């Protein structure tokens, strides 16, 4: 039954009461093609084996066969729920490698679109988390309602909703249309009320609290040991946010807070995401207020041919620290194209958290991790 996954299940007569349950790769709440092999005793999980790789598309190898510009399209397709931050992380790495300058206006635009992308990603996270906890898709639909507007904004600036390839090294691909700014302002003005609406369905709901509080406790030491980042780490009391720890772009110019909670359970992860959405709204509001005029793309050679060397650039994606490691051999395409995918690294701690909980909790914990299989398997 388990051939192919490299997993052997040894029949143990002492464990005759246990049952092995294959959750996934086709399962409604594994967020893609992820597989969990659960050892169950009744409904209690006594063993977990996460199996990844069903969505492996060899992005990293493909990146080595593409030119630097072409590889932007690959980054879109990793965390397809937050492509702007992927573009940006890659752009940061190439800029470091080739020593490219980014004009002021482009920096502002980058912050706008990637914070909007962070809101969109968290909306999906919260909506699907609600669905995992058993609401009949109402939070999901409400969240997707506003996510649509963000995608419409991406349509205005990038011409496409999902795979924008918008942030390029040296700047951004296209300038903002005047109505983008207008629509974004309108969106930012109404977004806090909409977040209140999501919260009214979940945050104070006793059933939801019962389902999520104390579930999947991740102590800070364990989080550090597994190098967990992003909202999951911040929910465990680790105030680590790359935007603060090592400011890239122009994040040091704005006034915002890193939401941290100390419970380390699924509920706190949800609450951190809600708080981050509010902070992102504030950031976008500030950026829109002093959006400068100017170029959107710095001086660039016609064909990008970085000098020999290597570069690692990282930023705070919606899922955690997203890093790109590039090695250049002086040609037009990277010699090595490596991604530190936050979903993948965060997912490794899943097994430790799930043991001892019920099957239903396994789903909630997985939902609270907010994984995107496109990024996990790459």
């Amino acid at each position, binding site marked *: 039954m388990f051939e192919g996954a490299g997993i052997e299940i040894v029949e143990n007569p002492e464990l005759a009461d246990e049952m092995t349950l294959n959750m996934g790769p086709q399962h409604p709440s594994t967020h893609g093609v992820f597989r969990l092999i659960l050892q169950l005793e009744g409904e209690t999980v006594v063993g977990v084996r996460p199996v990844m790789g069903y969505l492996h598309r060899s992005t990293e190898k493909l990146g080595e066969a*593409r030119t630097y*510009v*072409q*590889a*932007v*399209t*690959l980054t879109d397709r990793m965390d397809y729920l937050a492509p702007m931050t992927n573009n940006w992380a890659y752009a940061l790495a190439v800029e470091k490698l080739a020593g490219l300058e980014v004009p002021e*206006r482009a920096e502002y635009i980058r912050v706008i679109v990637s914070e909007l992308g962070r809101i969109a990603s968290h909306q999906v996270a919260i909506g699907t988390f609600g669905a995992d906890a058993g609401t009949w898709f*109402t939070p999901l639909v409400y969240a997707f*309602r506003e996510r*649509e507007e963000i995608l419409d904004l991406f*349509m*205005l600036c*990038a*011409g*496409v909703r999902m*795979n924008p*390839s918008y942030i*390029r090294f040296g*700047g951004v*691909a*296209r*300038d*903002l*249309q*005047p*109505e983008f*700014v*207008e*629509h974004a302002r309108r969106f930012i003005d109404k977004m806090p009320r909409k977040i209140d*609406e999501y919260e*009214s*369905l*979940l*945050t*104070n*709901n*006793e*059933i*939801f*609290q019962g389902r999520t509080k104390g579930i999947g406790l991740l102590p800070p030491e364990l989080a550090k040991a597994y190098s967990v980042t992003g909202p999951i780490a911040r929910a465990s009391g680790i105030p680590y946010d790359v935007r603060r720890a090592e400011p890239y772009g122009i994040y040091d110019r704005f006034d915002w807070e890193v939401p941290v909670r100390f419970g380390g359970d699924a509920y706190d992860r949800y609450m951190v995401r809600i708080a981050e959405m509010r902070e992102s709204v504030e950031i976008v509001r500030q950026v829109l207020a002093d*959006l400068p*005029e*100017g170029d*959107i*793309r710095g001086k660039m050679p016609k064909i990008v041919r970085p000098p020999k060397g290597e570069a690692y650039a990282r930023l705070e994606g919606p899922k955690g620290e997203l890093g790109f490691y590039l090695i250049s051999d002086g040609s037009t395409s990277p010699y090595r194209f490596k991604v530190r995918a936050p979903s993948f690294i965060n997912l490794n701690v899943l097994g430790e958290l799930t043991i001892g909980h019920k099957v239903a909790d396994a789903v909630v914990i997985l939902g609270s991790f907010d994984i995107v299989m496109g990024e996990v398997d790459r």
Partner: protein
Amino acid sequence: MFGLGVAQGMFTTLKHFFSLNNVVTVQYPEQRIELPPWTRGRPRLIYDLDSGDLRCTACGACALACPVDVIKIEQHPSPVKGKVLDRFDLDMGGCIECALCVEACPFRAIVMAPDFEFGTYDREQSLVFNMHELRIAGTPEVDSAMEYIQGVKRGLAGQAKAGGAAAGGARAGAGAAPPAAGATRAGAAPAPGDRQPVGATAGDPAKAAGAASGPRRPGGATGATTKAPGAVDEVADASGGGDGTPEPAAARPAASTASAAAGGGGSGPLARTDDMAGLSAADRAKIYKERAAAAGLGKAAPKEG
């Protein structure tokens, strides 16, 4: 038993149940969201309105830029000059609509049109489009969409240079200005008679029309008809400002979008009118051409130098 939190949620859903006009979904085949002209859909090859020739010179830059290698180009050397395009096949089965081909094109010959419905019964044949199926008329709106998608390029080769103004200028005039700054950018805009299309065909038509026509108007010189070498003849556009100010061709696509939304009023020969709604791009191009000829316009669209 249950506390306030549950009641809060119940109240939210009940509020939505009794609210009027809360439906956000679109009934797709009947209702369609109007897509901006620079929507990245299927790549199309632009042909000039007057000559009907494709602008493509078979240089192969798009095929090189394509990350998924779906563009196949065959050419032979022309006896006169350059190359002749024999075949331009695009496999939409593999196209990821990234617009890198549009950005790469040095001859402003390829654009992405908002085509997205490609349902077919087989993958091998029906999704490969040849150069004849990909033709799209080089109307000002298409040109401006292409300019916007190419946005990153500073200096454009070919006729953009011949036109006298850098496309970057057009881009800055159209896109960079936040609404309030629109008027102040008049000075930065190219000369009034410049025929450079603007990348400001906008989803918010009124604003775009204002932004595009404002800076383009010769500073305070109402009623003046300016001609630049090789430029389009100006005609009065009623919707442009209401004062009969001649407007450059560049402002027209925006104005016409505005007029379509406002229920008519745009009257320029190249304005997109309501009766064109159901027509294909090629048919629209014919109409544009006839009207341009009837209005006594010379060259209706930029042509390759």
